[in-house]
């Protein structure tokens, strides 16, 4: 196994982690601020991808497609918040899970109703496609480098928003004590709608960015949603920093585990069996990581200490 391959795999892990962060950031904000479990977050990711595919097909512009993805997902998020979620803040988590699970089904079948059952076409624009040569003779797809940069920029922007702005202060205050900031005169329902829209827009952006190198189809959000939940549990619920670290850990564990565990098993097994049991263990790796983190720190890496 050459150094070049290892560096390339680390980049791959970073890239998948940073896209996971875009999903997990919204999820952790919504859970942290509103105490709400939103299973339909994956549907917002799907809506972003479909909106991007539709707009890219219509206008041919990838930038417009990304904007459309964020706007469409944010609108869907606001509608969901105002029409459904508002009634559920006071109820327990089981009601929220049931209602948001129903939303998954409604969004999936609604999307199929509008766009049909076959996957949609969304491709990388020409100016972002193809490999680039990195120092050390590494060939790496340019688009994936762009994804890493966009993700890091969004993470930095989100960090600034949370720590340096008035809205950020309100969001953090909302996480700590909902009643108190309402008593201080902050319009809590407007704040909730805003947080929901922000989370939804990030999910939509992730869906569009990833949709360009994957397949835009109904149900694409749910596998990512599961990973995003793993991320926020590892990172600590409600923490943006935790979501970033957790997402990178999950991305790297998943990618590197899938590559190196089968290699490791080959040292003492025959290649075919090593490949199959190595990949089986690799798909468990992130859950083992999650278990280990929870034993060490039951509230996650950056979660509030009880």
């Amino acid at each position: 196994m050459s150094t070049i391959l290892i560096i390339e795999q680390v980049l791959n892990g970073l890239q998948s982690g940073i896209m996971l962060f875009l999903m997990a950031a919204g999820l952790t904000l919504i859970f942290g601020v509103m105490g709400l479990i939103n299973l339909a977050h994956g549907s917002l990711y799907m809506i972003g991808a479909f909106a991007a595919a539709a707009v890219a097909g219509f206008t041919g512009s990838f930038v417009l497609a990304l904007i459309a993805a964020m706007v469409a997902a944010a609108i869907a998020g606001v509608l969901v918040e105002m029409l459904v979620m508002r009634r559920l803040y006071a109820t327990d988590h089981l009601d929220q899970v049931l209602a948001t699970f129903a939303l998954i089904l409604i969004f999936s079948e609604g999307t199929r109703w509008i766009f049909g059952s076959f996957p949609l076409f969304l491709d990388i624009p020409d100016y972002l496609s193809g490999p680039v040569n990195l120092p050390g003779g590494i060939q790496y797809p340019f688009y994936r480098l762009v994804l890493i940069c966009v993700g890091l920029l969004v993470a930095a922007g989100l960090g600034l928003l949370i720590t340096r702005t008035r809205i950020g202060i309100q969001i953090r205050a909302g996480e700590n004590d909902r009643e108190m900031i309402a008593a201080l005169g902050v319009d809590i329902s407007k704040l909730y709608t805003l947080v929901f829209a922000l989370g939804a827009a990030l999910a939509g952006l992730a869906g569009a960015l990833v949709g360009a190198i994957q397949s835009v189809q109904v149900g694409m959000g749910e596998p990512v949603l599961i990973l995003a939940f793993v991320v926020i549990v590892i990172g600590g619920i409600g923490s943006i920093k935790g979501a970033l670290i957790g997402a990178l850990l999950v991305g790297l564990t998943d990618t590197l585990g899938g590559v190196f565990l089968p290699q490791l098993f080959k040292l003492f097994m025959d290649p075919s069996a090593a490949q199959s049991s190595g990949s089986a263990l690799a798909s468990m790796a992130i859950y083992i990581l999650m278990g280990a983190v929870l034993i060490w720190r039951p509230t996650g890496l950056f979660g509030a200490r009880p």
Partner: protein
Amino acid sequence: MKLKSLILSTALAALASGASADDIKVGMITTLSGGGAGLGIDVRDGFMLAISQSDRTDIEVVIEDDLRKPDVAVQLADKMIQSEKVDVMTGIIWSNLAMAVIPSVTAQGKFYLSPNAGPSALAGKGCHKNYFNVAWQNDNLHEAAGAYAKGAGYQNSFILAPNYPAGQDALTGYKRMYDGELAGEIFTKLGQTDYAAEIAQIRASGADSVYFFLPGGMGISFLKQYADSGVGLPVVGPAFSFDQGILQAVGDAALGVVNTSQWNKDIDNATNAAFVETFQAEYGRLPSLYASQGFDTANLLISALETAHPDDADAFRAALEAANFDSTRGDFAFGPNHHPIQDIYAREVIKEGDIYTNKIIGVALENHSDAYAVDCSF
């Protein structure tokens, strides 16, 4: 108690069958919603097209959506057999659902005609006299890909498939016919959508060709990422990642890729030409291989009904075995385990106007049966 329930069910059956006793009821359980719905919809549309083109008005088709979940499929099958009283069942797309449903259907004395899934467990020792597969045994298209790779002179293939039974069968099937070296063999996660890690390994492996079995959305993701990576080695795959429903979503990344299929729209016979034309007129899209399988399944059923009613199981079975219908594939016959003996073609992805589609470039395997037929005895 037993007698009582027997009388009760007979009475109920008499009530339920308001139509004449000779009517045929077909139960179709297929995937019509969720990620894999495109396949089920194609099978259903092909099947119903053949039914509507026949002059028979005595065939009733009950269609239900299995949501791609084995437990749902099992419940639906029980409901269809016990309360709908269907004579024949069909429709299942996925092998894991087929394994959950087909053995229980045939054990209850009903006929099952599979328009898609052909798991090896039902082709060999687990075969059943009332189970017919009209599509292929699961290994077939992979064997054809291996045969094509051998014929093309590839010496060092990198092969990958998802880590589940059909994925393992796929690599086994490929290796059965391919006799070069393997530059690498990878099992990916089922449902995986990012293949950056695998593509990096392919680049580093020194392979001369890539074989992959990644059905549906997985294949779209892989092909787009592979094309963008600039690796550029020739790719071979089974038709499942290159069917008509998927190609438009892959776009240019699929152009020129060789894939193996038992059917294509340019197979030259009158049945196929009429099928492609009427399907397009009826549904406004080109048919996929799944649609052709649904169409053939319905025509097989209709041909058998011409000679016998399913109530006369032995005669009906013999009529099915004769496979006396005009297949879209041209020659079609059943082997001893009720799986097809057929030609499997190598196709290449081309662009016709704005539409991506396939063109046959040669025959990969002629009159091909499957490796499990010898283990089957009824």
